[in-house]
């Protein structure tokens, strides 16, 4: 299961992994049930500071449920989450101050303009007006939203809304970013733009936990990875440890056991003309 990452780092892996005494996020034995189904089944993760941590898994694996509990939006049925030593559920003030969050599929206050939304996110985090103003314009430039800040967010495209939401998560310069599907519906140029921003942030000591469907992207940008299937962590560790000799996608398909695609669909191959 979840392996500590203090083990000697293989030569071919990125070497940005911090020593284990600087742990940004510890998730232990997290459990969430919805009625009879167990969505998250004793998930444990350890994320060292200064790393990009990827969580991959098929649809319905429990990624969003896990990340919601990590970010303090969904109350867990068991287990604990601690951010830089502060427990998210017993000391939320401190834990949440250190955390920037991008939830998946939740609404934004989208009757606000982009500028107002950034201001709102910043001032709720306790920033003063001048700081918010300066950071808003920096973020807008970084995400290519300069011309859209005066528009109401509900008129944004899906990708633009995602970008303004990520900007809102960054505005208070948190130590830990929890991003659920940050690249979904974002165009390739913006995606590589966001990746570059995240990599710089990590290089400066920040920590990112993100989920994605794109194995190729996770393999390229993440230092550490966890494969979650049916609410359980099937493998975790440095990218090199998890993927072994193949690609992350091959390892993932092997673990998820989804190599039976197309069975029983022979009718699809005898074309009806």
């Amino acid at each position, binding site marked *: 299961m979840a392996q500590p990452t203090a083990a000697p780092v293989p030569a071919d892996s990125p070497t940005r992994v911090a020593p284990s005494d600087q742990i940004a996020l510890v998730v232990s034995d997290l459990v969430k049930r919805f009625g009879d189904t167990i969505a998250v089944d004793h998930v444990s993760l350890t994320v060292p500071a200064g790393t990009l941590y990827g969580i991959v898994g098929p649809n319905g694996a429990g990624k969003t449920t896990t990340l919601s509990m990590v970010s303090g*939006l969904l109350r867990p049925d068991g287990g604990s989450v601690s951010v830089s030593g502060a427990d998210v559920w017993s000391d*939320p003030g401190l834990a949440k101050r250190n955390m920037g969050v991008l939830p998946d599929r*939740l*609404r934004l206050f989208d009757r606000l303009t982009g500028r*107002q939304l950034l201001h709102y*996110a910043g001032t709720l985090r306790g920033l003063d007006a001048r700081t918010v103003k300066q950071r808003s314009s920096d973020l807008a430039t970084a995400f290519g939203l300069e011309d859209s*800040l005066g528009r109401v967010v509900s008129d944004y495209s899906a990708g633009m809304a995602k970008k303004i939401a990520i900007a809102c998560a960054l505005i208070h310069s948190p130590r830990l970013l929890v991003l659920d599907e940050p690249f979904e519906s974002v165009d390739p140029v913006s995606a590589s733009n966001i990746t570059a921003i995240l990599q710089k942030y990590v290089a400066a000591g920040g920590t990112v936990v993100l989920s994605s469907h794109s194995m190729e992207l996770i393999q390229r940008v993440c230092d550490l990875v966890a494969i979650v299937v049916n609410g359980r962590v099937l493998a975790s560790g440095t990218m090199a440890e998890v993927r072994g000799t193949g690609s992350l996608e091959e390892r993932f398909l092997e673990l998820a056991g989804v190599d039976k695609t197309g069975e029983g669909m022979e009718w699809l191959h005898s074309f009806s003309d």
Partner: protein
Amino acid sequence: MVAQLLGLKLRLLANTFRRRPVQVIGILIGLVYCLGATGVAMAGLSALRQVAPALAGSIAVPLGSVILLGFLLVPLAFGADDPMDPRTFALYGLPVPRLASALALCGLVGVPALVITTVAGAQVVTWARDPLSTVVAVLSGILIVVTNLLGARVSTSIASFLLAGRRAREVTGLFALAAIVSLAPLFALLASVNWDGGGLRVLKSVADVAGWTPLGAAWSAPAESASGNPGAAVLKLLIALAFAGVLWLSWRGLVALMLGRPARLESNTVGAGLGWFGWFPTTSAGSVAARSITYWVRDPRYHAALAAATVAPVLFLIVLSVAGVPIHVLALLPVPVICLFLSWAIHNDVAYDSSALWLHLASHTPGWADRVGRVVPALLIGAPLVLIGSPISAVLYGDSEVTPSLIGVSSSLLLAGLGVSSVFSARFPYPSVRPGDSPFAQPQSTGTGAGIIQSVSLFATVGLSLPAIWLALQGLVRAGDNGWAVASLLVGVGLGLVLLVAGILWGGRIFTRRAPELLAFTLRY
């Protein structure tokens, strides 16, 4: 081309019935109802043939005016899915005048055309009393058909073209509300009329006015002729003709406009500044307040709540005045009633946020700050209303000594109500219309309890204001003793403030404790 378009229209009409049986039955019921109403109108108009011209005119002209108003306003208020939209034909490169006339001619096919033609024919029966009146009535009938059908075409196009933008749609919803609201006094008027004697006088005065407007001119012309005023008849025919001409020109203009600009571009830029956020301190409470006000200004769901707060006293006044309560007493009601509904408007505020509430959780916004911010817009509207409205109401009542009582009762309803709402929106949210949906749409799932929560929060507000209300009533009964009114002021404002603070603190604690459950609630609906 006209033949082809008419064929298309007939095909569309026939296809109305090619649906599932249940839908066809529904359509048939609607059709029967429509034809029944037409039949009644036809029979009524034919019967008016036996009646003196002045009386017949007093009935026919208001009827015709209401029908034309319906043809003009219904598409505007409720929008219309128009299969014969001129834009559909934009790609065929047809000349504008020909397309405009062809589409207008197609309007002659269909149920509305059948209805209006029948009614127009029936009014010829009413007025065919002498040769001149018959000629005038036939001309009027033609004008009635043309005006109604062209009017419906024009307003349908305006609804689907000029009002197609998001913001405009939000406004149209309010039009519909305004239309419904303005009908209420009409019904109250009808109910209050003494039909034995005064009723006809009312109708006659309506007919006299409407007859000189485009709405009723065509209906009034034959009545004038039959009453022996051929000059007035000709004048009214000219008014009706001019109106039809205006409609025709608008229709041609609209077709040209719609063909030239198939899609309307909406300017989305609201402003470069921070708007309300620039006016509030950058604390959590200040930001939530600025966000709330922005939503009250931009979100049609809050517009609907505000409209309800203004409509409620109007309905109260109508009902009570019909019941015979003297007008000067009624003058005391509007300000307190508006305050009651204003404070009640936010009793389900969290549900309005929907899942956007996560931002407050993620940033660990204190519960009390969330509560304070949500209360601010209602306070900003309510406070000036109480301070300005109370003296005016007192003057209308005829005794400025009731001003303190009015301020006391209104403040109590506003402040205590906001306290109640602060607790209720944190503790008992229920599904509401989702962001972006029409304020008149039904929520996806109403579940149980919405009605109970609505009435309990409303009655709790009234109940907590009873001390101020009781003192104010004492002051009214024992006129001359100013002490009661002052006591009402002090108790109303004082108790109101205490209850507001208590509600914010209590609601804030609930919010802090239950925030994840509140978010889970918004996600379920």
